[in-house]
């Protein structure tokens, strides 16, 4: 009972938030709406019995990536006047809508009647899997992150000089 109510609350909140991101007049308001959406999606993860993913969603996305977004918005100096509408905006709108419909259709097609059994999403299980089955991926991620650091520094240097 509570689960169903929470699901609808989370789902509606996520969709409203996503609409807010698109419709926001300034980039920063859009960023705020994005946080709202990400938190709503975190609620959905909780309902899927994946508390760790939910916590990561809030920690990494709503926390870290949002700070990064805001810094980038400030770096690019996207004030309120940045809302000037370029000519191709109606094309962008139409194609966005089309992509949305397609994605929705694919999702419904993929999920309807599949009835997949949920796997154990507990933190401990994730920890065990990371150092056993997915060890290579786990170590590869560290290299990937290293590359990201180097890339950030190189890009930052170019901007500075």
């Amino acid at each position, binding site marked *: *009972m*509570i689960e169903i109510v929470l699901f609808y609350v989370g789902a509606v909140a996520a969709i409203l938030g996503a609409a807010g991101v698109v419709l926001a007049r*300034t980039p*920063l*308001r859009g960023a*705020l709406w994005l*946080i709202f959406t990400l*938190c709503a999606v975190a609620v959905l993860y909780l309902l899927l019995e994946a*508390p*760790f993913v939910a*916590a*990561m969603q*809030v*920690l990494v996305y*709503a*926390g*870290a990536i*949002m*700070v990064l977004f*805001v*810094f980038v918005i*400030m770096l690019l100096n996207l004030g*309120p006047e940045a809302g000037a509408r370029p000519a191709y905006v109606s094309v962008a709108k139409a194609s966005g809508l089309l992509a949305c419909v397609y994605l929705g259709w694919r999702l419904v097609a993929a999920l309807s009647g599949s009835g997949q059994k949920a796997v154990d999403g*507990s*933190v401990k299980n994730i920890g065990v899997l990371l150092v056993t089955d997915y060890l290579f991926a786990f170590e590869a991620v560290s290299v990937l992150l290293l590359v990201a650091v180097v890339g950030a520094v190189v890009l930052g240097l170019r901007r500075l000089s």
Partner: protein
Amino acid sequence: MRALVDLLNRSFAVPAVYQPYLAAGVIFVLAFVIVVFAAVYSGVLIFAERRVAGRIMSRIGPNRVGPHGLLQFVADAVKLIVKEDIIPDASDRPLYRFAPYLMTMGVFAGFVVLPLSPHVIGADLNIGLLYVLAITAIAVVGVLMSGWASNSKWSLFGGMRSAAQIVSYEIPNALALLPGVLLAGTLSTQAIIRAQGGWPWEWYVFHSPMMLALFVIYFIAALAEGARIPFDLPEGESELVAGYFTEYTGFRFAAYFVGELAHTWIAGSLAVIVFLGGWQIPGVSVAEIDAAQGGMLWLYEALALAIFVLKMIFVVFLMIQLRWTLPRVRVDQMMVICWKYLLPITFVALFLILGFMLVWPWESVGGLLWRVAMTAVGLGVVVVYFWRVRYNIVAARDRLYLKFWI
């Protein structure tokens, strides 16, 4: 929360149909209790802070409103509520109005997983520690939003600096808590406490020399996370007016203050939970507490609560004392401290602890000897601390006013 729901269900023989509604009701009442607790705590803290500041600076401090000035914070709150709410014309109005909510909501939500005793806890989430780290990240966004939405240069600089500081120190902050998870093998706050013991040599802080170092690192990082002196540069009055809340007035301004003050509880109790043994009662094992019934249970609960609060007072007092002792660090020093000192030391300490756990497991004799030795070291530190305080007091006896009550 769980315990209370179970207790109510059992004592009133609630039919199964109504149990979810009862649980939901209890949860929402408890949520308000938690929020009121956080708000009152920040009020009491500001009183303690001003009073301790008075003593450290050899003056009196607030003593007019209520007995010994204890109700000063109520007066302050009333004053802030009836102040005009000024919203600058140049600001981004909706964002400006909403930003304080993010700050308070983020900090208050952190209180849910912080226990006071074996049964007094909002909700014992199985991702407890990560949850606290994640949820307080939302407050950062509030800070950034307020800085940007004010459209004031001071606010913007304050907000940017604050965000840079908080995100930088979040790394050593989180990694310093990691050994607690390593040793307890869980993220739940209650389970981490349960894995420790009542006596100091059963606390994680004395597990190994590296652990003691990590405790210090955690403390420094927590100070920076809460933007407390010596890391209060986001709101450094002498350079940034008031930082990100320069433009705020009235209760919106107070909301930031409540958030910052309440954050000391989160920072302090994480230190107590992960490093200082939480509510564990010396000489009473967890099994005994679990098995206790009736009066004994209440006695243990009260004892555990008192022990936890005592430890909290010690940690928070240390924060207050540091606030009135140290000068503010510069912005470049702040960055250097985090990235060039705290972070490498944390990493090395973590590697060493991983190795330490392999060589001397918790239960082994070697591990116990290490812990006893480290407890002696810790005791030495505490003794030196009190000795220095006493020395300073004696040296300045004639210029000091030390009576607590006025």
